């Protein structure tokens, strides 16, 4: 009988990195599919092109750099690509999307040494690169054209947040119901209800930490409520703030990226709060109406600091 001498524990929870990634993909799926349905084959092409580009880049990097950490199989490249496209305008040229996905994988992750080594969220890094390089393409928001229903051309072609910033008025012409469903100009995966659905499923499955989600939402909701109460004419209502501009995508899927968020439970509250607050501040005072990517990157940078400041108390340690 051959028995290896291996160390305890001799049982395992069964949770693996690739299973986590698969579950994130599943969580994204409802909003993603709905986005494709809303924005047609151009959106589908964008999604496919980005995924293919991400997989090829990952594969190439792993071929060239033997010491790189992580495997193609773990599915992290696909998650990165999906997170990126979900935050892009749905009719963004597919080749630029592919370029973005390659940037995300190569510059966002592989140059740091691979899976788990990066400081910044790869998808958000790539999004910022695209925003700065292709500002026009990145800010043209087509009206949704659902495949089977013919919607009245009620849409202005600016996102809710963008419209507020341009017109300086919080009076928007999209109804709240259509907004909740995400039938509005916006990025590909922005349907609040479906994001909520996938996100809550992930919390239930213990894939993501509710602490970040809740504190991020609170971090954005409280200041926007205060601001809105002070100046209801120029500031979007808190509910609209929450349901637009990828806030939920950020709360459930992007800020919860394990690699770039703190590992300590207490640190996660602060991290989430910081993300939420920054999103609000950038939206209201910044040059870009969609503040998510910048807020996340900024918080990524301070994440190690938060982590070291929020160490848990040791058992039996007297403070």
């Amino acid at each position, binding site marked *: 009988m051959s028995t290896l001498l291996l160390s305890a524990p001799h049982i*395992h929870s069964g949770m693996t990195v690739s299973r*986590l990634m698969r579950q994130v993909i599943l969580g994204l799926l409802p909003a993603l599919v709905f986005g494709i349905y809303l924005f047609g084959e151009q959106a589908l092409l964008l999604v496919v092109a980005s995924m293919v580009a991400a997989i090829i880049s990952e594969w190439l990097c792993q071929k060239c750099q033997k010491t790189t950490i992580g495997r193609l199989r773990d599915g992290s490249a696909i998650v990165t690509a999906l997170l990126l496209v979900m935050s892009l305008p749905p009719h963004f040229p597919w080749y630029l999307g592919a370029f973005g996905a390659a940037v995300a994988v190569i510059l966002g992750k592989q140059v740091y040494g691979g899976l788990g080594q990066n400081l910044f969220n790869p998808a958000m890094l790539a999004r910022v690169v695209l925003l700065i390089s292709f500002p026009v393409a990145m800010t043209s928001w087509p009206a949704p054209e659902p495949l089977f229903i013919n919607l009245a051309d009620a849409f202005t072609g600016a996102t809710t947040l963008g419209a507020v910033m341009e017109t300086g008025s919080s009076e928007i012409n999209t109804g709240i119901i259509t907004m909740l469903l995400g039938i509005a100009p916006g990025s590909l995966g922005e349907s609040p209800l479906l994001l909520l659905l996938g996100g809550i499923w992930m919390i239930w499955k213990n894939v993501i930490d509710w602490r970040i989600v809740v504190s991020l939402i609170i971090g954005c909701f409280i200041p926007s409520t205060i601001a809105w109460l002070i100046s209801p004419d120029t500031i979007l209502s808190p509910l609209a703030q929450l349901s637009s501009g990828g806030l939920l995508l950020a709360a459930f899927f992007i800020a919860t990226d394990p*690699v770039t968020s703190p590992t300590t439970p207490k640190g996660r509250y602060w991290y989430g709060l910081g993300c939420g607050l920054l999103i609000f501040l950038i939206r209201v005072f910044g040059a870009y109406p969609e503040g998510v990517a910048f807020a996340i990157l900024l918080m990524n940078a301070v994440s190690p600091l938060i982590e070291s400041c929020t160490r848990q108390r040791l058992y039996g340690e*007297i403070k």
Partner: protein
Amino acid sequence: MLFSHSLIKGGVHPEGRKQLSNDNDIMRLPAPKRLYISLKQHTGLPATAVVRAGDKVIAGQLIATGSGSSANLHAPQSGVVLKIATHRAAIPGGGEELMIHMLCDPERQNSSLKVDNDAKDRVALIDIIEAAGVVGMGGAVFPAATKIRSTLNKQIDTLLINGCECEPYLTCDDKVMREQSVEVIGGIRYLLQATAAPKAIIGIEDNKPEALQILTDAASEDSNIEIKSLPTHYPMGSAKQFIQALCQVEVPKGKRSTDVGVFVQNVATCAAIYNAIRYGKPMTHRVVTLSGGALEKPMNIEAPIGTLISELVASCGGLKGTASRIVIGGPMMGHTISNMHTPIIKGTSGILFLEESELPQKNSSPCVSCGRCVSVCPMGLLPNAMAELVANDDLEASSEQGLNSCLLCGSCAFICPASLPLTQYFTYAKDELGRQRKMENKAQLARRLNQQRSERLAKEATEKAAQKAAKKAQRGATRPKRTPTTAEQEI
């Protein structure tokens, strides 16, 4: 689980798999032919054999004496001592140890300890427990008497009796509680006397409803023994967490549980204490769980200390498949062995024969900083950070992070999605640090001995010189003068 408040920090919920072995009654093993009783039942000094090859011994006779950190050993059965020699041991990493090899007689003869089973005096009770060679059976395998003796000059408010058995697969404590409730409760009464504690609490995880019920019934007369149900939550049975769950206090770093007024003992040990004091029965047997998917008939066996594992397996109907891993102890903290021709010792709570499908996957991926290990660590450590430091061989830094507090409970490695062998890092680092400390101590000891030696030599030299001077004075100055050479001075 999401927002629930728990009695202990962190922890995990591994699948229990206790139903494999807790259905059947404890089986009494028919007397094995040969026994191999290790002189080293636990860490610390080995016991000293008091029998020699060829000696005839009867069951219960003292065959080796303990020395503070080790306990007395008694012959589980009558027979002949064949030899005292090394034999393969079921210890981490394999290896051999000095053992008393016995050939057993089928005839049953018994010798019991001479005890005064009405003893009321604390010291007298402790002496009996010591003579009977009772050790903690919950894993630590520390002589029970030594531990109880440490309470003589301390005030113990609560006796905590550990019936958690939080390790998956293991059911030996569960079975002991269900089948030997009289002994368990009786032992607790003696322990209350010996430690002068006013009350005892038995903590049992709620996945053992029968044991909870039976002990509650058995202790219905005792107003000072309380039975408490605890949530099934690993590592509830670890002493520090057990105290935290039952008393809501933490044992301060570097202190013992007796410093916070509690004394923890395992249920099976209580039964052994009862048998020792009530019947003068030394600790020669124990209940062992044999379980795992590769075993034909998982069950609990009461076996003499020194029985070969291969014999235990045979009496469970053998293996039905290939055991990919044989584990001594529970699956969370136990260690593997590669040879079944090794004997059980007083601390062997379980022997698991695990199939491939029960084992964790072998390939680990990189740490994705998911923080799961941090949130499950019952000691509040940062396992991911510590492991990274150990991987970089920065043991000092990892011990600053609290490595010494690590229980090696395995919760972090159990939950880690990257399947990183976190506990393996910590075991290595602890061993390594321990070794370094030992070397340091040795060097210090050597320095001290050296110094003592030169002092002694100097003293002897002066004494010699004084003697010589005295002699010379006696004999008068008849002989030529001679100064002692340096060589003479140094001898």
